[in-house]
């Protein structure tokens, strides 16, 4: 498998860095190489936040995204900011509350990520895990088993069941 670049973007506090870590760890469980990095402003919550994950069978030299294959955006602000970095033929996954950007050279999935977290699972904070389920259902980048194992290894104790449910909601949304 050649180098694949993922950018998970949204607002600080939405758990996107955690989602990036889980995706990278799942790739390691599958025997692949992965690098996860992030950038954020000086504020603890709010502001634009992005996590980047690069997955490859080969050594990963340059650790940052340059030619994004998959972009997740949970806020309009982050979608506007990073949409130009998505390569032609790339995959955009946005929350349905965000207006579809005017690009006909990409594949866009507009899905009720934030709403599902609130209404189906009663926990807005699991939107990140739902998004992970969606990303993997669409890209099949890692095995389901590894993704579940990585979720369980990185979420707080006592929330395992909730997060596995969220992951499965993501799988269903992307079907």
């Amino acid at each position, binding site marked *: 498998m050649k180098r694949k670049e993922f950018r998970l973007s949204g607002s600080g506090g939405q758990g996107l860095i955690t989602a990036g870590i889980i995706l990278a*760890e799942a790739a*390691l469980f599958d025997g692949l190489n*992965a690098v*996860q990095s*992030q950038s954020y402003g*000086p504020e603890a919550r709010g502001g634009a936040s992005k996590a980047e994950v690069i997955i490859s069978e080969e050594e990963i*030299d*340059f*650790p940052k995204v340059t030619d994004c294959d998959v972009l997740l955006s949970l806020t309009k602000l982050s979608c506007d900011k990073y949409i130009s970095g998505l390569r032609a033929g790339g995959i955009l996954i946005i929350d349905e509350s965000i207006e579809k950007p005017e690009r006909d050279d990409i594949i866009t999935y507009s899905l009720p990520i934030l709403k599902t977290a609130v209404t189906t699972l009663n926990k807005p904070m699991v939107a990140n895990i739902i998004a992970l389920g969606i990303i993997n259902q669409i890209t099949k980048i890692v095995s389901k088993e590894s993704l579940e194992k990585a979720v369980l290894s990185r979420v707080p104790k006592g929330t395992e069941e909730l997060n596995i449910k969220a992951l499965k909601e993501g799988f269903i949304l992307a079907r």
Partner: protein
Amino acid sequence: MTIKLMQGNEACVEGALRAGMRFYAGYPITPSTEIAEIASVELPKYGGKFIQMEDEISGMAAAIGASLTGIKSMTATSGPGFSLKQENLGFAIIGEIPCVVVNVQRGGPSTGLPTAPSQGDIMQARWGTHGDHSIIALYPNSVREIYDTTIRAFNLAEKYRTPVILLLDEIIGHMREKIEIPDDSEIEIINRKKPTCSPKEYKAYKVKDGDMVPEMAPFGSGYRFHVTGLVHGETGFPAGSDKSESLLNRLIRKIEDNVDDICTYDEYMLEDADTAIVSFGCTSRSAIAAIKNLRKEGYKIGMFRPITIWPSPEKKLIELSKKVNRIVVVEMNAGQYFLEVDRIAGKNTQVEKYGRLNGEIITPDEIISVIKEGHNA
């Protein structure tokens, strides 16, 4: 061998613990905070102590104090805190007190760009504290290398009784990647030499014939001695200017005469190269990606990467300067290590610099165009 997904800052703490760190003092600062955070959780499990001090200055002071009791100690900071530690860093140099000072660099001067990467503290690591001295500074470029290099920083500190600076990049410090934790058989641990004489005969700064590093007794073990920032004699008590030259020369020579032991570096695709990039830390990873692409187009290009950035790998750089007709120093600053490379290699070959100051990593594409622009086919 265990495989894990680990953050650079975490690997620094793990490496430190493996090297024998049992004391950490510091004051949290982005982008080094995880080092303090993880040390505070992990150290008690090893019977070690963590203390959050009232400021950066006391963090450095406490690390020095702990080391004097025979314990391996570390502190971590970033640019603004590294500035504040400089006075006590000089104290550790003249007092010959081993410790490790981690600087996860960020944009400066002053509070600068707190969350953005920079390689702007190269010269501060060398000359940040006043007075004539030599210094050891190490500069890893991956999570695994942070682990190994942190162990090495402790080993060098113990062996040469001197503070060792570990320069990290925000990008590698905060990045997570695969790390294979080495088995015990692959790891060498060095501990400071302790006195063999009786407490009565002990002179804290007396050097045995043929040696350059005095034996170090831990405070509280019955060996009484005095430590001062003043120029001192063998007993550690202040002495006049007649002792200055020999003391300072020994402190410089114990490092400079052992460059071959201290300096580590990586040579990448240099065998047939006519052009060389000199780079370190995160920037060297961009350079490797650039070189792989340029090689496909037929460019004979490679990279020299100092892992020990101070003292300079002077012999290797001279060798390189006689082999290639162009050296480009790529670094995320206005051209700091370039000054050193140009000083050493500039007589023999053309030395250029490429840098930036906007808090964004230099990309492989940028390096490729810099190389192509100046290339004489």
